[in-house]
């Protein structure tokens, strides 16, 4: 059986309207016969067949507009019994060049020529402290050369301090660019391993958020928009402080519990296209509220653009997942191996709370903890949630 399809009469023809069948079912047709009239954007065109046979049946009624390639009729070659449809061939795919997104930069408003900036970076000169002598006050090559000279002479200079931390990544090997697909695979592998190997226990505590939210509101009143704190910042800080009080919860399982001194909190970010990515805020206990806010502001867009460095993704000692506004009321996490605990914070909702024998409506956070029973027991987890509660009742002390 031959499938007679809506022909393509030009690259700009996408569809045609079958105006009239010029043949009937059962008609004998041969190569070159006009079988139908088809209306296109260029007008009415007679459609010919390229096969000999008998029209078995029509697949499209007169008046129907169908895309190119749609089967219009079935034609049975004269000497053939009805069998099966010809499978239409898949069109060749055209390769499209992917365009890489431009890097985001958050350089300061400072005039420095590209050459001078490069030289300063190469020589670890903090160019923010240099005075520019270019025609428009910009820092030019000469200024950086002078700074390098001074540095060489004095070791240090009042005007210049070498950059000690955070060298700008210069090699692409540090940039990890996972794809949506690979993220899905990574999540699947880690979660499967976790559920297979880690005996989880789960704890939950309701936390009255009135004080925390009040504090947040007041703090934000005095802040410009871009400096306003998100509740996530408070959560991260509170978790960090609580870990300081219950350090057994912060560690990894390597056939035995290894408690970590550094508190690196993995913070779960969901990706728009699905999947999660978990960058870690390092030494969260040593960072101020503002530093944590800065970190969030910087990491979220980078994570969503798949521009995380591998160092952003490793070294977490515990994980925090916060559902955020409008989400589920509680969340019970699955531990990210080899860590031994994950803290889950639900959506803050108004709930009736009994306090001093009175029922009151309060904003409530359901905080959960999933712990690795090989490493800790419920008592440790419980102490941790108590500490978290206490810390969120005293936000000003964080």
């Amino acid at each position, binding site marked *: 059986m031959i499938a007679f399809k809506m022909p*393509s*009469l030009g*690259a*700009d*023809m996408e569809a045609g309207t079958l105006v009239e069948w010029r043949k009937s079912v059962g008609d004998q047709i041969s190569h070159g016969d006009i079988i139908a009239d088809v209306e*296109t954007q260029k007008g009415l*065109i007679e459609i010919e067949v390229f096969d000999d046979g008998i029209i078995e049946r029509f697949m499209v009624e007169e008046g129907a507009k169908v895309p190119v390639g749609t089967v219009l009729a079935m034609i049975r070659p004269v000497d053939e019994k009805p069998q099966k449809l010809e499978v239409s061939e898949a*069109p060749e795919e055209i390769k499209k060049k992917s365009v890489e997104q431009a890097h985001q930069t958050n350089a300061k408003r400072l005039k420095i020529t590209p050459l001078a900036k490069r030289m300063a970076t190469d020589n670890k000169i903090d160019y923010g402290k240099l005075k520019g002598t270019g025609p428009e006050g910009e820092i030019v090559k000469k200024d950086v050369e002078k700074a390098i000279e001074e540095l060489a002479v004095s070791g240090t200079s009042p005007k210049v301090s070498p950059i000690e931390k955070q060298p700008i990544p210069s090699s692409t090997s540090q940039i990890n660019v996972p794809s949506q697909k690979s993220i899905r695979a990574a999540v699947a592998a880690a979660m499967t391993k976790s559920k297979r190997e880690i005996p989880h226990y789960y704890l939950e505590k309701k936390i009255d958020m009135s004080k925390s939210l009040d504090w947040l509101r007041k703090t934000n009143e005095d802040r410009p928009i871009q400096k306003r704190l998100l509740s996530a910042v408070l959560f991260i800080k509170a978790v960090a402080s609580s870990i300081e009080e219950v350090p057994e919860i912060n560690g990894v399982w390597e056939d035995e519990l290894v408690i970590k001194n550094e508190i690196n909190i993995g913070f779960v970010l969901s990706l728009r296209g699905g999947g999660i990515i978990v960058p870690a805020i390092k030494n969260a206990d040593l960072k101020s509220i503002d530093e944590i806010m800065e970190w969030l502001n910087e990491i979220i867009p980078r994570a969503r653009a798949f521009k995380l460095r591998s160092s952003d993704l490793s070294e977490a000692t515990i994980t925090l997942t916060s559902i955020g506004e409008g989400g589920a009321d509680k969340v019970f996490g699955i531990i990210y191996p080899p860590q031994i605990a994950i803290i889950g914070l639900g959506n803050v909702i108004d709930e009736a709370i009994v306090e001093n024998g009175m029922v009151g409506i309060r904003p409530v956070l359901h905080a959960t903890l999933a712990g690795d029973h090989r490493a800790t027991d419920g008592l440790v987890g419980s102490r941790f949630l108590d500490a978290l509660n206490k810390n969120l009742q005293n936000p000003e002390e964080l």
Partner: protein
Amino acid sequence: MKRNPSRKKSSSGEEERALLSKMMLIRKFEEKAAEQYTKEKIRGFLHLYIGEEAVAVGVIQALSEEDNILCTYREHGHALMRGLNPGVIMAEMYGKVEGCSKGRGGSMHLFDVDKHFFGGSAIVGGHLAMAVGLALASKKQKKNNVTCCFFGEGAAAEGEFHEAMNLAALWKVPVLFVCENNLYAMGTALKYTHAMQDLEKKGAAYGIPSVAVDGMDIIAVKKAAEEAINYIKESGMPYFLVCNTYRFRAHSMFDAELYRDKKEVEEWKKKDPIINYHQVLKRKRLITKVQYDQIEAQIKEEIDKAVSFAEKGSWEAVEDLGKFVYSE
């Protein structure tokens, strides 16, 4: 003057059957091309020559292998007649690297320099000046070959037509201008585009011998072309041959033919060069049913082979995109 001594005239009708067979090959090849187009195997523009076969066959049979040929974008027939392999032409139309232009040209740009086939050109009129240049080179190099340039009546309205005619006559170079007048420049009729519709009169203005002939009649075209070539070879001067013909198919595949009456097409189909010439041969007892069927079978086999060759062809690597911009 014999153009091709190997092809002797014989009462057996061999030569006549060869002419018929060439026209049939072009027709069948193009019908297959149309089919492959609707299946999206061939893309871009596909301009069919169906109805006009007598012109390419009649003129090109009069040329020697050293004579240069330049054509329009409706040039599958000319390429076949020049002896390009049908598979290589089909592969070109598929865009495969095995095509005669490595797939870079497509249907409108078939080239084979070894066969002195300088392409289908898709800028109407632009190749006339190039033809004059090729003929000028022949003259300077003291070669005895002719440059034959096919173009439509649409080109005769271009300035380049007049510049080329003038230069050819002025420089006295051996070029045969063949106007394939199929009455429509795309969709606009001759009467709407030319003040003087007897196109052969335009050659006379440049002092170029100019003749009009029935382009649907293979024998008339053949005779006129042979006379033209003889004149050019003897004089070294240009010649203008107008072949009045008709395309049975639309301008290109995607054309609703709003500009002409179906009756007009049917009238012209009565002059089908293939059917009529077949009748002539039958009447003259120069072809039998068996011979005709043999020709058809042979052509079918050849075309099936061409399609299979094109199907099996390969795509050029995208990394080679920058090739053929400059010589390597």
